[in-house]
């Protein structure tokens, strides 16, 4: 019986699993699809372009004097903070769009194709790193225009940027998970904001930790976002690699290790 079937299967042997290589290839193809979609609907990029520009301007000029005495002194503090906050919150969009996308008929076709089950998810997430890259670039450029000249130099700034993009990609698996399990796109937005808002604001992103009450300091200091912000500050401002970099990367790896399988399983259960 298998020969019957194999005969039409374009000469490929039939197997009931997908190899790692195929999973990677499928994911890259799906990422290519994501990029094409972004190119076709550039208005999707509105948020990633506007938010860094707006937030950087607002926060710097509003808090600069109060927190650091002057805008120029505040820039090395706020730019890494804004960067992390902006890019991480951009990853919410990933979850929302995934939810919207999954409702479209084309996902039925993806499900009916003999491709790796993880590919439609991994591809979408991978394509969205383009958004993070745009947000990262714009934040640094805005900072530069306002007078932020990080001492770490271009190389370390680039490393800091890549770090933030990588961590945002990891975090986007959390929102992808919500995207898969939630019933509507707007509820994904809602849940994600509730998770993200405290995480980004209860951190050292905008203000020095030592002005906060003790119990809050405790949370702020264990908050992974704080570690990421510190890592970025060290890289960009002084060109040093500290323990916070390691903590951030480990945190990112843990998130992916937990949420990627959860998300894929939830995605498959929906079928």
């Amino acid at each position: 019986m298998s020969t019957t079937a194999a005969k039409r299967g374009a000469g490929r042997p039939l197997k009931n699993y997908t190899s790692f290589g195929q999973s990677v290839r499928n994911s890259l193809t799906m990422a290519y699809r994501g990029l094409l979609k972004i190119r076709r609907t550039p208005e999707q990029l509105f948020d990633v372009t506007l938010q860094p520009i707006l937030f950087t301007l607002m926060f710097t000029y509003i808090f600069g004097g109060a927190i650091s005495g002057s805008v120029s002194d505040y820039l090395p503090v706020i730019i890494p903070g804004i960067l992390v906050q902006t890019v991480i919150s951009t990853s919410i969009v990933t979850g929302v769009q995934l939810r919207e996308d999954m409702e479209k008929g084309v996902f039925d076709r993806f499900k009916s194709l003999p491709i790796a089950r993880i590919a439609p998810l991994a591809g979408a997430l991978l394509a969205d790193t383009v958004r993070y890259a745009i947000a990262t670039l714009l934040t640094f450029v805005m900072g530069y225009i306002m007078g932020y000249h990080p001492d770490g130099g271009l190389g370390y700034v680039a490393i800091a940027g890549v770090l933030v993009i990588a961590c945002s990609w990891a975090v986007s698996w959390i929102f992808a998970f919500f995207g898969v399990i939630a019933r509507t796109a707007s509820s994904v937005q809602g849940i994600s904001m509730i998770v993200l808002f405290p995480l980004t604001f209860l951190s050292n992103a905008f203000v020095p930790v030592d002005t906060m009450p003790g119990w809050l300091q405790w949370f702020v200091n264990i908050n992974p976002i704080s570690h990421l912000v510190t890592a970025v500050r060290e890289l960009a401002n002084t060109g040093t690699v500290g323990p916070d970099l390691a903590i951030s990367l480990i945190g990112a790896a843990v998130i992916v290790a937990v949420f990627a399988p959860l998300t894929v399983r939830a995605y498959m259960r929906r079928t």
Partner: protein
Amino acid sequence: MAARYGNAEAEKDGGWAVEARGLVKTFGDNRAVDGVDLNVRAGSIYGVLGPNGAGKTTTIRMLATLLRMDGGSARIFGYDVEKEPQIVRQLIGVTGQYASVDESLSATENLVIFSRLLGLGRAEARRKAAELLEEFGLTEAAKRPLKQFSGGMRRRLDLAASLIAQPPLIFLDEPTTGLDPRTRAQMWNTIRRLVKTGSTVLLTTQYLDEADQLADRIAVIDRGRVVAEGTVDELKASVGNSLLHLRIEDQGDIREARRIVEQVLQVRSSASAEAGKITAPMAETGRVTDLLIALRGAGIHLAEISVQKPTLDEVFLAITGHGVKENESPESEKSNVAEVASV
């Protein structure tokens, strides 16, 4: 019967492209599919006919690994749908009821991406896309975003996307709904051509006419159950090539009139909800004369008589004892004509 592809091997395996046993799917307490059996021979066109909400789409989605079944089992070319879904996916192409192509991309981009996902190389994928667009008459619109496509174009692209890997089994869920007559005829030709090249096609439709034109065998589904199954001819014979409608002047005569109709035509009739109306299948229109004579002999006066081709509604009325539109309220009067399933 003609298992046109992989003949020897297919025959050894019974030649079944699809074997489904007791498929069940429940949504809440709605048994959308309630014990459906389907057997589709390799190399044939199989039609699943049924009204809105009958469970056609749900059945196809379960067979195509898109929906988990709650009961029963299904095999595609001998491979279990639940245990070996990834193999099954390598053997099928699915064109869903609603366009399963990417709205935000162009036709070429869609086909290239699906081709790449199916393992074709970059150049090969481009060539395949161009080839399919040509075949389906979409070359001119290839670069336009799908948002500007008409329903028919979208449908064709959808089908083209299902054919990239030349799958031996193709599911088509209402492939011609919403198409104009010319496009429908084109789609029919495409489907026939597919089967000529060795594919098996399982399609659903709401039109008896379409099943008639295309399908070698038909299953009629209603409320999640197969209510009749057979070749087109068998099904037609059960409903009659044409349907006789009678209206009796005096309602009191209806019992006697039905007896005469059944006796003369050698079929079972049904009395419809409308007062004094009798419907019966007819194999030969010539019998009508005999019937009229017999009725006059019995002193039964007719208000109206007509002989018509059966519509889907009437097929349903005949087979299930209730019409398509009133399928929410099962009629107590069961005058089943069709016992085709056992033929």
